[in-house]
């Protein structure tokens, strides 16, 4: 009766994958810090309308505990991923969903089938240490380009 939830489950997992990948490509090895925080500039390109939407905000990370992505401008929203669930807050409306997220060994998130269905490619620069730039390409042609400063 509740199988309809599957309709969007893959998309959600993909979001988690995208965000956590920022850290995964920041260095899964010893280079990945226990804690990190900073600011970001995000450029979301929607392929079918040829529009790029730019937003800025802050991020916080604590290894194995949580990852928070807070968009501040032009409109605020917050995304938080923990090992057991994630929360999306838009205009004080909170949506929480239980989902197994790997915020410890982040690279493994790409082993999940649903993510492979949505994400085409992830590139991070530099390849070691915390990344300054991450680009995620989706299969539908959308792109997410993120620059981060700690």
């Amino acid at each position, binding site marked *: 009766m*509740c*199988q*309809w939830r599957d309709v969007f489950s893959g998309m959600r997992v993909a*979001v988690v994958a995208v965000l956590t990948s920022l850290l995964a490509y920041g260095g899964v090895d010893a280079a990945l810090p226990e804690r990190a925080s900073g600011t970001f500039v995000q450029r*979301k390109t929607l392929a079918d*309308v040829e529009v790029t939407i730019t*937003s800025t905000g802050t991020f916080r990370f604590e290894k194995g505990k949580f990852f928070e992505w807070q968009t501040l401008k032009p409109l605020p929203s917050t*995304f938080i991923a923990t090992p057991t669930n994630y929360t999306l807050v*838009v205009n004080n409306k909170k949506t929480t969903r239980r*989902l197994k997220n790997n915020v410890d060994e982040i690279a493994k998130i790409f082993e999940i089938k649903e993510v492979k269905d949505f994400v085409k490619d992830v590139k991070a620069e530099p390849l070691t240490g915390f990344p300054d730039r991450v680009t995620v390409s989706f299969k539908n042609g959308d792109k997410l380009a993120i620059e981060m400063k700690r």
Partner: protein
Amino acid sequence: MKILRASFLVVLFLLAGVLAVRLPQGVETDLYGLIDSAHGGVMREMAKGLATQGRLLLEGQDPDVLKERAAQIRAQLHQPPQPDYKETLAFIDTHKAGLLAPATRELLLSGQYAQVAEESAARLFGPVPPLFSAKRDPFLLGTDYALALETNLAGGWSLDAGDPVFEQDETCYRLLTVDLATVPAAEIVSFLVACEQANETKDAPCRIWCSGPAFHTARASEQSKREINLLSGISLALVVLFGWLLFRSFRFLPQLLLALGVGALAATGMLFAFFPRPHVLTFVFGTSLIGLSVDYVYHARAAGDVRKIMRPLALSLATTLACFAPLMFAAVSVLRQMALFTSAGLLAVAAFVVLWPCGNAGTIIVPPCSARRCVGRWSWVVFVVLAGLFVCRHPTPQLVMDPTAFYRPDAYLAQSEKKLLTISPVQTQRFAFVAGETLQEALEREEAAGVKGLSAVIPSLKRQRENAALKAALVREQGTAYTAKTGLKMPSENPDGFLDPEQLPEGPLRTMLRSMRVAGGLVSPYAGVARKPLDSHVTILKPHVELLVLFTEFTASTLSLLTVSLLVFGVLLVVFFKRNFVRFGFPICLSLQSTVLALMLLDVPITFFTLLCFFVLMGLGIDYTIFHRGHPAPETRRVVLYSFLTSFAGLGLLALTSFPVTRSMGLTFAIGLFFAYLFSLGGSKDV
């Protein structure tokens, strides 16, 4: 005589015709089928809809193991592979013109267009990619709709490859819904046994809990089949043995079988003529007809010339029919069915033995029987002892109406149901039934009554058109500002169609529609607070409570009819036996009272079903008494003894079954028949 025989055969032929036409329609089989249309018939429809569904809860530490096991179970239970949700997603994408998340709809209805636009833009500027093309859905209302679907389930549940999954205290759960309509009962039972054994293994990687009517039905029917086969064999052997002991030949068998066949044909034919779809319980109760039929056949055969026993036979038949007559006026359909079935069957058997007498019976050997005389003289002592025990022990009368007393699942299924109840995503035991001749009518009524059923996920077409108008208003009010803020252009017109649930492709939404749609409307779990119907088309039901009310009603009705039967019975005894009526009535009263006392002393709960046995006990009791006290030839008493033994074996063996209803009926019959026979002995003229 020839005219009577011909008329009887014509009636039988007509009834056979009725059966040929009506039998293919089948019979009601579940407890909910007992509910008349006067009760709305909703529960019956609901039960029908859910009858073949099963739910399996997989429990373990590793979600991947559960996922793998789920795929194996699907294959094992002949289920189609999980449909790809992307097909449903693609369907929604092209049919989302009138789809809105409930919260967004509320905002738009109250004219808060700016807030909706702001939330849409915030979502757009956030990290979540839109689910559907922003070109056709710039406000991301389709994505918003899909995300809002989640709020219909209990918190904490999510989906993995189409199955609801949940994690609690480091234990993972996965819920599977299966349709077992085409799976043979034997396979289901083998599956249950395997699950039970696997669960008992220490550190089992995946424990499986099975729930739903289909599993209970399969296990109960397989068990019943085994028991009935065994008991029928024993019962048949005993009937043949007792018949042989009585007549010292097997020549009685053809007449007995023919009489039973004629009785069954007449009873079933009449039943189907007046009740197009009778309840199976009528046939269970109808087996008591066998006891009464054997009685008539043995007496007729023993007499040789049936005219010799015409008076006691007629009196016995008349009083027995009088016992059942009040049931014909019961408000409860199943009681009327039982009365009609038994009366028609009895009349047919009696007519058969009179119209086709068997002639020479052979010699009935009557051994000296001083023991019986002694028992007859002192039978009242049994009653005194019982009454004494009753006074000493003060047993509490257990008049049980709770349907849980009628069926006790085995430990594994009971544990499974308990587990499902605590873990299930739908945390309510109440259901809302919304009537509607068409699916759209039911959806519209759900929406009007505020029931969060199917319409919470798939709105009616009427509401979808309203939603489309609200979307158009949003574009008019906020379109320009939104374009300026995001760069997304507004589509010139709504490019998508409306979502007609009848057109849904196979997938999660279609599965949901199938599980909620029943004949005459829609059923959904109801978590609201209202206990009374929200409007005349909505019924709020709690199945367990409904059944409790139903059986309370049945029990009350049966008790009053039993009282009426006793009164009618008493009046008939006065009419037939004048001043001697006490001689014939007293043993019946004693036997019925003793049966009640014995049941109470043995802690056997008295239910609607056991109360029904008392009608049969009255019929058989008066039969034994009339033949013992009115026709005291030694051969007759011997016939009564073997008739009693045959009924005792046939009906009493039900006490050995595992199904509580038949077990308690069997116990009541065994105890009641014993007392009916015992007390009929006392006061015989030659004793």
